[in-house]
């Protein structure tokens, strides 16, 4: 330990004597570590952003859509027939043990007018459960209640984008807007959710009680007055999603009296599964970025080896002298090893700082979210130490095994 301290002191002194070269050598490691930190940060940020988007959709969600049916050999597309009803939604909620909540929705486009402003947006008829299911919170006002749905109240809840376009900076709550010539009182504004994983603006929406939406805005389906556009289902937990899908499948086939062997007249989509694929592709990108950046760290290590070899050659006489005045081979070995490791560690620390600064600049200027993990920092630090030992060993060994006589005579 004491020996090591002495070696460290000798090594630090030698590095001090060659300041410029030490700094230039460190530059390789600095860039390498900074690249790893920044790239891993960008990768982790991207992954995190996708996760946040998935969270914004709502957790453990399944969507049931009215399906295609065949009629005399003509197959209609998904949603082509109104096979799904509010009763189905209620039945799923009541009878499937793996299902926590259901929310039947109808949707359509509409021009919305307030005063002299107007805006084309998506109108959705929903029940209060929809708010829970999608993890909505209110920015202002209140969501409508089950009673409001039963009473077909003319209440509207606005997304932030709609509120901005119709009201500007004013509070819309309590104001009256016109949707397809029907006046609605604004009950409240939803807290913005931002983009969906597929890039849609989730705040460009107006939520109405489903009863009002069908009767007053979107029109009643002539074949089935209780038909809905889709039913959103929330499973009780992530593990129960598959179970919930099976239960719903069985229940709906029974309710729709579909004989065994015939196709479903509805379709079920597991949203979590769709977005998990995106998440994993983002993770692949993160790993790839990190791997490419590590290459630069290795190149930095080779730079250290290069300079250390040059340094050993240049300091041949010094090494000869040290050996002559009583340095043992291991003293020389540890001196040069400590020099290499000091260069790489110091470079690592500076690299971490530069990497963190770069990450922040990327988030600030390019508006990408980055996430600097403690893990990435610790790993790059340890890795840079390892680079120092690995690439410093060969030059140090070369130095330690110089012949003192020849080294002293070296010109």
């Amino acid at each position, binding site marked *: 330990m004491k020996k090591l301290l002495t070696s460290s002191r000798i090594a630090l002194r030698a590095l001090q004597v060659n300041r410029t070269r030490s700094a230039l050598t460190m530059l390789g490691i600095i860039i390498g570590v900074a690249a790893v930190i920044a790239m891993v940060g960008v990768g982790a940020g991207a992954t995190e952003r996708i996760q946040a988007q998935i969270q914004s959709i709502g957790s453990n969600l399944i969507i049931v859509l009215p399906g295609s049916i065949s009629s005399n050999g003509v197959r209609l597309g998904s949603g082509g027939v109104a096979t799904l009803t509010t009763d189905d939604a209620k039945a799923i909620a009541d009878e499937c043990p793996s299902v926590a909540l259901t929310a039947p929705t109808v949707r359509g486009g509409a021009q919305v007018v307030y005063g002299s402003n107007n805006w084309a947006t998506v109108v959705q008829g929903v029940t209060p459960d929809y708010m829970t299911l999608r993890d909505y919170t209110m920015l202002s006002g209140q969501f409508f209640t089950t009673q409001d749905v039963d009473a077909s109240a003319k209440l509207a809840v606005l997304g932030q984008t709609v509120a901005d376009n119709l009201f500007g900076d004013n509070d819309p709550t309590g104001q009256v807007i016109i949707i397809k010539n029907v006046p609605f009182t604004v009950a409240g504004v939803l807290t913005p959710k931002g983009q969906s994983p597929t890039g849609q603006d989730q705040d460009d929406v107006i939520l109405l009680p489903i009863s009002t939406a069908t009767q007053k805005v979107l029109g009643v389906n002539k074949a089935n007055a209780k038909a809905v556009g889709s039913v959103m289902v929330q499973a009780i937990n992530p593990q129960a999603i598959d179970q919930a899908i099976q239960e719903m499948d069985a229940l709906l086939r029974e309710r729709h009296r579909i004989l065994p062997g015939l196709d479903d007249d509805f379709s079920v989509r597991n949203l979590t599964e769709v977005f998990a694929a995106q998440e994993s592709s983002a993770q692949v990108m993160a790993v790839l970025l990190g791997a490419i950046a590590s290459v630069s760290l290795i190149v930095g290590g080779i730079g250290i080896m290069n300079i250390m070899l040059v340094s050993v050659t240049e300091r041949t006489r010094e090494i000869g002298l040290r050996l002559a005045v009583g*340095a043992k081979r291991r003293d020389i070995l540890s001196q040069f090893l400590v020099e290499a490791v000091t260069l790489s560690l110091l470079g690592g620390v500076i690299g971490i700082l530069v990497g963190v600064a770069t990450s922040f600049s990327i988030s600030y200027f390019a508006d990408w979210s980055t996430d600097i993990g403690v893990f990435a920092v610790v790993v790059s630090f340890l890795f840079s130490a390892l680079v120092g030992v690995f690439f410093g060993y060969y030059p140090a060994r070369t130095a330690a095994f110089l012949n003192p006589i020849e080294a002293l005579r070296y010109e």
Partner: protein
Amino acid sequence: MAAIINVQNLVKDFRLGEVPVHVLKSISFEIERGDFVAIMGPSGSGKSTLMNILGCLDIPTSGSYTLDGISVGRLESDELAEIRSRKIGFVFQQFNLLARTSAVENVELPLLYTDTPANVRRERAMKALLAVGLAGRADHQPSQLSGGQQQRVAIARALVNDPGIILADEPTGALDSRMGLEIMAIFQQLNRGKGITLVVVTHDPEIAAYSSRTLHFKDGRLQKDERIEQPRDAAADLRAVGSEDGGPEGPPLQPVSEARRAS
């Protein structure tokens, strides 16, 4: 007086390709403790090879070499390093000081490889610098010192471990004659004042004249062993030459320390 160096039938061969070259051909001699020996000979006479073996930097092909009672014949490189560290001080023709490193740090260098605490290192280095009259230049770097001063720093470095013997390979070879005289004066002072055994390789008979014994080598053999009854006095010659810069500054050539190695 017991012999500090005992060389018996020393042979050193080098292989250059297939042909072995006999550099030292069965050399035997003794050097008494406290002697001042000059080794002379033309180049190729094997005197440098002999110095390397005496300095425990190299090992003989055959024959025995006993330094201060230790048979150096077949020691491992770490054991040789230990002996170099404790018993031998080196002075080189080219000084071999570390650049951009202060004089006192250069002198401390050998102590770094012994378990010497930092404050003791500094203290002993300062004493050694005082002994060569350079205490006032402790913080100067080699580039700020004259050749003679650099060589004096190198002598201080050789002294700092309190070695029994100092080996100097052409110590005045890179210096003008005045500076060479200074170095010889310091050597004589160390030899007489502290009883340090000195072995100096030189090709210059003027330098050899300051030794008390001269060994002449030729073609790998000891040709002549010459005892000088009245060696020249370098300090007196230096005074005769007259000093350019007042000579070694400070109280010149003080005794370093009374602590002689017990062994």
